[in-house]
C-alpha cells in the first residue's frame, strides 16, 4: 500500500505541472497580454507599456512561465486588477464553494444511491422507469433554469426560502473576514439562529447543484448493481439461503462501490463547473461567482490563478479517489 501511495503521489507532480502549463499557455494563445486586453484603448501607449513592464509581460515568455510556476509553488497566485490577493480570494470564496459542494454531493448521494439501488434491484419495473427518467431529467436540466424554477416556487410563490446569498445580509455584516464555512461555524459554536439562517440559504443552491450529480449517481449505482447481481458469488450467496436484502447490501452493493467511487471522484470537475452556474444563479459568494466577475472584467491574472486552483483541486481529488479505491479493492494496488 505504501509503495502504491508513494507512486501515486509522485504522479501528481507531472499531472499538476502539465495542467499548470496548459493553463499558462491557453491564456497566452490569444494575442496580446492581460494588461493590454484589460486596459488597451483606455491608456496612452506609453502608460500601457509602463504597466506591461511593471507586471513583467514584456519579458520572454519562458521567463514568465518559470516565474508563474515559482509563484504557484510558493502559494502566490498573483493579484487581481484591484490589487486583491488571488490566494486570499481562493481561501475566502473557495470555502463558500466548498461548503456548497459538500452539501450538494451529500444530497446527491442521499437521494441518488437509494433510488439507484432500488432501480437496480427491480430492473425494468415501474420504479426503474421512473428512476431512469428522473436521472436523465436532473442531469439534462440546465442548472440555472432549475435554480430559477426553485426560486420562483420556494421564494416567490411559497415564501419559504430566501432567494439568494449564503446568509442574511444583517448576519453577514457581523461575520469577520476569513473563510466562510458558515454552516460549520454556526454548528460548532452552537449558534442556532445563525445555523437556521445558513441552512435556509443553503437548501436551494445545494439541491440545485446536487440534482445535477444525482442523475449520474442513480445511473451509476443502477448499472453496477445490475452487473454485480448477475455475478456468480451473488448466486452462491443466494444458494446459501442468505436473505435477498443482505445479498444486495453486503455482496452486490459493496462490490458495485469501486467503479461508483471512481466515477463520483471524477464528478468533482462537474461540481466545480456546476457551482459556477449555481453560484451565479443564487448569488452565492463562492469562487465560481468571482470567476465570472473576473472574466467579465477581463482580469486574466485572476482567472489564471483561479483556474490553476481548479486544476489542482481536480488532481488532488483524483488522488484521493485512487487511495479510496485501493482501500476498497486491494487488486488496484498491484
Amino acid at each position, binding site marked *: 500500500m505504501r509503495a502504491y501511495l508513494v507512486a501515486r503521489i509522485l504522479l501528481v507532480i507531472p499531472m499538476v505541472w502539465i495542467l499548470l502549463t496548459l493553463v499558462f499557455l491557453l491564456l497566452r494563445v490569444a494575442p496580446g497580454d492581460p494588461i493590454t486586453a484589460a486596459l488597451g484603448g483606455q491608456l496612452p501607449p506609453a502608460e500601457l507599456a509602463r504597466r506591461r513592464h511593471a507586471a513583467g509581460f514584456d519579458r520572454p515568455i519562458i521567463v514568465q512561465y518559470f516565474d508563474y510556476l515559482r509563484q504557484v509553488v510558493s502559494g502566490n497566485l498573483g493579484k487581481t486588477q484591484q490589487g486583491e490577493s488571488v490566494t486570499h480570494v481562493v481561501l475566502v470564496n473557495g470555502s463558500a464553494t466548498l461548503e456548497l459542494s459538500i452539501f450538494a454531493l451529500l444530497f446527491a448521494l442521499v437521494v441518488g444511491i437509494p433510488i439507484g439501488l432500488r432501480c437496480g434491484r427491480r430492473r425494468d419495473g415501474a420504479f426503474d422507469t421512473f428512476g431512469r427518467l428522473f436521472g436523465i431529467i436532473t442531469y439534462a436540466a440546465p442548472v440555472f433554469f432549475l435554480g430559477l424554477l426553485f*426560486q420562483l416556487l420556494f421564494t416567490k410563490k411559497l415564501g419559504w426560502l430566501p432567494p439568494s446569498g449564503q446568509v442574511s445580509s444583517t448576519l453577514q455584516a457581523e461575520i469577520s*473576514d476569513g*473563510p466562510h464555512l458558515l454552516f*460549520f*461555524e454556526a454548528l*460548532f*459554536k452552537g449558534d442556532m439562529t445563525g445555523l437556521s439562517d445558513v441552512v435556509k440559504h443553503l437548501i436551494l443552491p445545494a439541491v440545485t447543484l446536487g440534482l445535477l450529480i444525482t442523475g449520474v449517481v442513480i445511473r451509476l449505482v443502477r448499472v453496477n448493481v445490475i452487473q454485480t447481481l448477475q455475478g456468480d458469488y451473488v448466486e452462491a450467496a443466494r444458494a446459501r439461503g442468505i436473505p435477498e436484502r443482505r445479498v444486495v447490501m453486503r455482496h452486490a452493493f459493496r462490490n458495485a462501490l469501486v467503479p461508483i467511487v471512481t466515477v463520483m471522484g471524477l464528478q468533482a470537475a462537474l461540481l466545480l463547473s456546476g457551482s459556477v452556474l449555481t453560484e451565479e444563479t443564487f448569488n452565492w459568494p463562492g469562487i465560481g461567482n468571482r470567476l465570472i466577475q473576473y472574466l467579465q472584467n477581463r482580469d486574466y491574472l485572476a482567472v489564471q490563478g483561479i483556474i490553476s486552483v481548479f486544476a489542482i483541486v481536480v488532481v488532488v481529488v483524483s488522488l484521493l479517489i485512487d*487511495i479510496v479505491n485501493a482501500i476498497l479493492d486491494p487488486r488496484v494496488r498491484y
Partner: protein
Amino acid sequence: MLHRRSALFGPAAIGATAAAGLLVLTACGGSIGNKSDSAGKGRTTITVGTTDKIIALDPAGAYDQGSWTPIQNIYQHLMTVEPGAKTATPDAASSCSFTSPTTYTCTMKPGLTFSNGDPLDAKAAAFSFNRVDKVNDPKGPSSLLTNIKKATAQGNKVILTLGTPDQTVPLLLAGGEGALVDPKVFPENKLLDSGKVIGSGPYKVAKYDVGSQLVLSKNPKYKGSDKLNNDQVIIVYKQKASDLKLSLENGDIDVAYRTLSPTDLQSLQKESSKGVKVVYGPGAEIRYVDFDVTTQPGKQKAVRQAAAYLVDRKQIASDVYDNSVEPLYSIVPTGLIGNTQPFKDIYGTSPNVAKAKAMLKAAGVSTPVKMTLWWNPDHYGELSGDEYADIAKQFENGGLFQVTRRSVDWNSYDEDSKKHAYPVYELGWYPDFPDPDDYLSPFFIKGGFNNTGYDNPTLDQIINAQRGEMDQSKRIQQLSQAQQIVAQDVPLIPIWQGKQNAGVRSNITGVKDTFDASFNFRFWLVGKK
C-alpha cells in the same frame, strides 16, 4: 501488520482528516452572530440592494455610479449639492469663490477630522486633487479634473488654479472626483485598497466583502451638517434584477436601488399588500443613438436628419420601458438649467415619414439607405434589445432605411465604438455632476470622448464660452444655441431620459428625498418608521 498499515488510510481516517480540515478552516474563519459592535439592539440598520458594482472605493480610481454611491457617503467634499438643489454649497469648506476667472479659492472649516482622527485641512484637500492626476488611473476620474491645473494650500485656504474659466467647478468639487482623502493613509501615486479607505463623511467602512457586501457604519467623528436617520447601511451586491426584486419582497433588503427592470417596477407597484412600494424621482441619465460621421450612412447630414424625423420616443418610453423613462428632445436633459427642446421643435414629437423622405430626396440620397445599427446587451440593461428592435422598425418605417441590427459585449463595444467600428450605435450617459456642460463638453469639444468624427468649431466656441460665463442669463442663451446646433447637425439622436427609482419596504422613509439630478444617493436621509 499489512492490515494495520492499511487501516491508517481507512475510511475513518479519511473522514477524520476531512473533519479536522474543516475545523481548521472554520477556526480560521470569522464568527457568526457574536460581533457586538456592528448591529447592536436599538440601532437602525438599512439594507440597500443593488446590481451595481464597485470598481474602487478610492476616489482616484472611481468613475462609475456603483463606486460613487458609497464614495459620496464615505467622504466629504469642499462643496456639496443639497437634495433637490441645482447649485453647490460649501461642505468641508466654510466658503468658496472665484478670486479671479481662473482661480477658485476655498476656506476650510476648522476642526474637521477624518474617521481615524487625522486632520482634514487645506493640505489634505490640495493633496486630494493633485493625487487624482498623479494616480491617473484609467478607470479613475482624472479626465474630469484636467482643467484644475494645480491645487495649493495656503494656511486654511485651498487655491485651485484653472486652465480656463470654468463655472462648473463648484459642482465638480461636489462629485465623487472631488472627494477629500487622508494624505497619511492614501499613497500619492497609486490606489489604496478599497477595504482600507478612510474619509470624513457621514459613514466609515466597517466591512467590505468584494462583490458581495459593503457595510457602512456611522462615523462618530463626522462634523458636517447632515443628520443621519440611521446607524448603519449595508449595501448588498446582486447579480440580477430579478434577485434584487425577490430579496426586497422577501424582506432581506429594505431598498432595491439600481437597477430594477420596468417590468419588476410595475409588478412591485401592485404589491403594497406585501409591504413593498416603488418611489420615483427626477434623474439625468440619458440614452441616445450616436452616428459616426466619418462613415456611411451617417456621413451625410441629410441621412441623420431623416433618421431624426423617424424616431418615436413616446412609443419607446411606453412600450419598452412602461413609462419609467421620459422622451428626450435635447442632449441636455430636463431639470438642468438651460434645457430646451430643439429636437421637438425641428423634428416634432411623432414620426414624420414624408419629411424624412423629402430630406433624403433633396440631398439626392437613394433609398433604402442601408444601416447597421449596433447595440449592447450587457451594459445598458436587458431592455436594450427591445429598444433597438423598436428603433430599427421606426427607421425602416416608409422603406427609407434598411436596418441590420448587431450587438456585442460591453468590453469590446466600449473599445471598438471609439475606433469607428460602428456606424450607428447605442450609447448612454450618467452625469458626472448636475450641470448642462457635462452633456456638452465631453461630447463635442475636439470631437468628443466617443470619437465620432463630428467636429463643429462654432459649437466648440459656444460650449467653451458658456463654461466660463459668469452671467447666468447669458450662459442660458449660449446653452440654448449649443443645443440648437446639435439638433440641426444631428451627430446623435437623444432618445430618453431616465427617472430615478427604487423599490422600498413600506416602513422605509427618505428615499424619495434623495432623488435629484445630482444622482447622489444620500444614505443618511433614509430611515425606518
